[in-house]
């Protein structure tokens, strides 16, 4: 595999890990949504790094099509999640998930 594509693939895996950590460890809803977005970006980056075939040739178009669709769907999911979070906070005043033992 090409060195720069390998670099980006590893970065994608690291981004997935960072996003997953934030999704698990932080209680605020908005931060969880941001973590989900960064997880998705990590997956897309690994995909595009796999499609890369060197600076001379054009890259494989099929993963690109998948990734473009994925970006648009991720934005739709983010919008839905944000609408739900806004509704939760306007109706109850809660902006974060509380741990179980504090209930």
């Amino acid at each position, binding site marked *: 595999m090409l060195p720069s594509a390998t670099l980006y693939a590893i970065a994608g895996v690291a981004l997935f890990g*960072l996003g997953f950590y934030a999704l698990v460890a932080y209680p605020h809803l908005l931060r969880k949504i941001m973590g989900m977005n960064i997880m998705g970006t990590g997956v897309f980056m690994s995909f595009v790094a796999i499609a890369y075939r060197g600076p001379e040739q054009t890259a494989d178009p099929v993963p690109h099509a998948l990734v473009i669709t994925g970006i648009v769907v991720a*934005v739709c999911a983010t919008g839905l999640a944000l609408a739900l979070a806004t509704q939760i906070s306007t109706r109850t005043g809660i902006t974060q998930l509380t741990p179980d033992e504090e209930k």
Partner: protein
Amino acid sequence: MILLGLDLLLVIVLLISAWFALTTADLLHGVVIFIAFGLLVALAWVRLQAPDVAMAEAAVGSGLTGALLLSSLSAMRRAQARAEASKKEGDVG
């Protein structure tokens, strides 16, 4: 060789900005860093010979998501402030 150095710098900045976007104490600052992260990811797509993906990411992934996050952050903080104010009134009355 030069471009490999550029890739290395870009990856380092990407990871740093993702980390601080998720862990900064003030969420508004986190959203600002998240938008910077979106712009840098668009540059990474360009380096991977995917200008079509970069267009979608720059316009939709960074711009639209950042604006959505901002507007709902403002709505959530307003709702939280209102809930705290009404709770305080209930304590007095």
